[in-house]
Every structure is written in C-alpha cells, then in structure tokens.
C-alpha cells in the first residue's frame, strides 16, 4: 500500500552516455535492491531501482524509450511521481567476501549494496562511454570490463568474473545487468559452488504482484524478487530465455 507522492528533482548528474542520476528527497526507507514505480503524468510509468538510499535518494536512469527519454529531459526543480519502495531487496551479510558484478545500467541497482558489503566490484559495459559509477566507487578500485576493450578488461563481465573467481575466494556473488550475463553468473555460481543473489528485470505493469506480467517460472519479479536467491534460481529455466511482452505473450529474451 504505497501511494503516489510528488518529489522534486534536486540534482542531476550525467553518469555515462544515455545514463543520468536524479537526486530527490523522500522519506521512505528502501533496502538495497528495492525499486519504485516512477510516473511521469501523461507519459509513462515504469520501474526504477533505488541507486542512492539515505536522505537524498537517487534513481540512475538509462534512456530507453518514451518514459526514460522524458525523464532525461527533466531539470532540477521538475517533479516526478513515485510509489514504493517495492519488492524484496538483497540479503546482506557483511562478513561474507563478495563479488559484485554490474553490467550496464545494472550498476544502478547495485550502488546501495556496494556501500554495505566488503569484497570486489566489477563494473562492466559494452564500451567505456557506458560505464557508470566508476568515480563513485573509485576508492574501492573496481575492476572494469568492456566488450570492446575501450577500458579495463576486454570481454564480457562473465569472463572477468570467472577469472576472479578462479584466482580469489568469494562467499557470494551479487549481480545485476543483462539477463545473459546473469545467466552466465548463475551457471558459474553453481559450477564453483559459490552463493549468489541476482536482481532481475522484467516488464512491469502493476509492480505489486497481481498482473503476472513480470513473472518468471511462477515467481513475480516485482514482489517475490527482484532479488532472487540461489535455491530459487536453480529451477528457473526461463532465465535468459523467456519473458512476457506487454500483451502477456511469451517472448524470447534477447
């Protein structure tokens, strides 16, 4: 039961090509991994992870379509409507040595988590211009991976992760990003017997667990997730394969 409230954008920061962070004040108390529904009246409503918790909260938004494009046109002083926080966030155990893997805008979701754990961070993107939060987490010396090698490791985040996992000891992997990346990391975790928690994205209509549009193998990403645990991922055979379009029809995950 979370009703709309209007919040004012206080600061905006360009994080990368097509990615901006919007800071605003709101007195909800989200956990890392939780999300909100953002409504831009007359335009669209869409889910967005919290990328900064605390008093001055943040959304870090990649420009994708109608809603996110209009969001990118906003300026400080403009308003957005939000409801939330929703969903199940990460379960964090500070004692465990963690490997955090963020692909593309998936880093947005991981931001608040990284502030609470100890371990290594991989920031990945297709190319240098799309890396986000490299400055925010520069004190952690994050590993960088780009598909085209324009910065850091040349190759997929999964490849870098496999290398690190082979060289170092981790208790758990936390991941968010493109679904193929997540699928690769889940396989890796089972293979190497490491714990894992991943945050998934699906098309969302309601955000409150009743419309079934975000469901994957009977789990609702909006309420049962977006963060899923290893036991649940075991039999999630739609991961990286099937999702639902706006009509509810099955689609292939790119």
């Amino acid at each position, binding site marked *: 039961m979370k009703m709309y409230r209007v919040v004012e954008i206080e600061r905006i920061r360009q994080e990368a090509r097509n990615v901006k962070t919007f800071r605003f004040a709101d007195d909800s108390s989200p956990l890392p991994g939780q999300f909100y529904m953002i409504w831009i009246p007359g335009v669209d409503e869409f889910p967005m992870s919290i990328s900064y918790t605390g008093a001055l909260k943040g959304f870090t938004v990649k420009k994708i379509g109608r809603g996110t494009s209009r969001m990118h046109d906003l300026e400080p002083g403009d308003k957005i409507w939000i*409801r939330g926080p929703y969903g199940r966030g990460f379960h964090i155990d500070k004692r465990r040595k963690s490997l955090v893997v963020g692909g593309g805008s998936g880093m947005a979701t991981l931001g608040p988590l990284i502030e609470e754990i100890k371990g290594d961070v991989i920031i990945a993107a297709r190319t240098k211009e799309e890396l986000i939060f490299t400055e925010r987490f520069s004190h952690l010396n994050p590993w960088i991976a780009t598909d085209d090698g324009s910065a850091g490791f040349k190759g997929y985040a999964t490849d870098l992760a496999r290398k690190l996992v082979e060289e170092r000891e981790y208790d758990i992997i936390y991941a968010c990003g493109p679904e193929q990346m997540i699928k690769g990391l889940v396989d890796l975790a089972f293979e190497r017997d490491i714990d894992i928690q991943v945050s998934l994205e699906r098309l969302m209509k*309601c955000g409150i667990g*009743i*419309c079934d549009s975000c*469901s994957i193998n*009977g789990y609702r990403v909006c309420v049962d997730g977006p963060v899923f645990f290893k036991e649940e991922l075991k039999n999630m055979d739609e991961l990286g394969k099937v999702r639902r379009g706006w*009509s*509810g*029809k*099955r689609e292939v995950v790119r």
Partner: protein
Amino acid sequence: MLYVEINGIGFHNPLILASGILDESGDTMKRIASLGAGGLVTKSVGIKERQGYPNPVIYELPNGMGLLNAIGLANPGIDSFEEEIHLALDSGVPVIGSIFGADEEEFAYLAKKMEEYGVNAVELNLSCPHAKGYGMEIGVDPDLVESIVKEVKGRVNIPVWAKLTPNTHRIVEIAKSAENADALVLINTVKGMVIDVDARMPVLSNGFGGLSGPCIKPIGVRAVYEVSSEVDVPVIGVGGITTGKDVLEYIMAGAMAVEIGTAIYLRGIDVFRKIEKELKDWLLKNEIKSITELVGVAQRR
C-alpha cells in the same frame, strides 16, 4: 468440510482464483493452486493478441480499500494460450477459461478453443468496465447476454459460467437473461476514477478503471443476495473477499463458491491457504459439517 461441487465439477475448497489476477502464466497459476486455491480462472482471453492500456494501469487505494485498474484486457490471444492452460491443468485443480469477445460468434469460437485445450468450464466475461466494445458494454444488454449465452451453450459441452457487471440497476433482469448458463459469477469490478490532484489528471492512462477489493464487497454481497434468490443456477461470489468471514458473507448471501483476486495484493500469494484456515476454524467452532449447509442462510424467507 470445504468440498463443493458446481455443475458436477468438484472443488476441494470453494476458493477460486479470480480472472485477471496472476493468471496469465500457467506457472503462476500452478503455484497459486499449490498454495491452496480450490480452482483457477484464467485471465480473460480474446481472439487476437491485445496490448491493453499503457501504464499506469493500476492505482492502490488508501487504507487497504483495494485497487483501481484498467489493464485493458491485455492478453496474448487464444492461439498462444494453450500452453498456459496445459500448465495450469497440471496443478490438478479445476481450470476455468475466461474469455471475452465482441459478439456471439467470437464468444462461441473462444469457448470451443478453450474446450479443446481441456479446461473444465468457460467463464464469459460480460462485465469488464473499461474496455470499449467489450465486457460491460455488452453485459448491460439483456438480449445480447441471452443470445451470447445461448450460442456458447450450443457449441460446447463443458459448463458455461457468465460473469456479470454490478454497474447497472437491472442486475436481476440481466441475471435472468443469462440463466441459460450453468452458473453466474458476480461481480466484476465497479467503474471508477481517481484523479491525481497534483498532476491534474486521472491517474490511469485510460482515465476510467474498475474498483476491486474490500471497498466493493458490500456491492458484491448485495448483488449475490439479489440474484441468487431469483435464479435457479449456482451463483459464484466475487468482490473484496479477503478473509474467511468475507467468504461466509457471500456464501450466506447465496453463493456456492467464491473467486478471490485483490486479496493476493493485500495478504500475499498464500492468501488462499490463510482464508482456508480461517474458514475451517469458523466452521469447526460453529459445528458445521459442510460449508454447503450455509448457502443462502441469510436470505429472508
């Protein structure tokens, strides 16, 4: 104690998942059955794939009163729905295929398809309050209702349920015109609107939507009470059921079973299990052997 039979179909409890809530995907329906539902009604499916309305399609009313929604009959189309039905049937509980169409022919075609897919019954959605040319626009015309029911009945052998709208003053008349059906389902959502004062516009992209949840329960109970004494077919109650006592209210008003939707949002996906327990506890305490004893006891005779 909770077993009921409707049109010869046995339900291990009278708590059926309502159409449109978590019943687009066969896996989700299976999960809900495993969490206690006695039966499953699918999302309303039409002839063609339909995107429905853009977001926002849902609004959460304050104080747990319920929801306002205008999904807009989004659905993958009947041809893509076979797989979901098969998965749902795996659950072992009866599956009722909900369908919506623009005329007799569409309804009959869809019903036939559903029958082929193996559903235990079909539910005709004559009552969605927010889609142009469908649902309620059809469901307030007694003649049209009568001829749709007749056409469908003539084309399939499985039981046919007709789901009616409360958005009319002649609900009894419409119920009678649908009496050819094997059961009547009351009620669909109540037409409403919420305006966001700061945005100065309706919240839902469609403007209008349908109210569900506790705020419509007295309307649903009233409709079941009014109709069940006037028709000879079983009535299934829907609207705002959230607790065991709510189920009893509908049963005492005259319903043989109930459908439950918005309560999943209010009490979680295991709400069927919770309600089942509340019902059992009440029946035990009141020394009732079978819930069927209570059907219609609040009717004045």
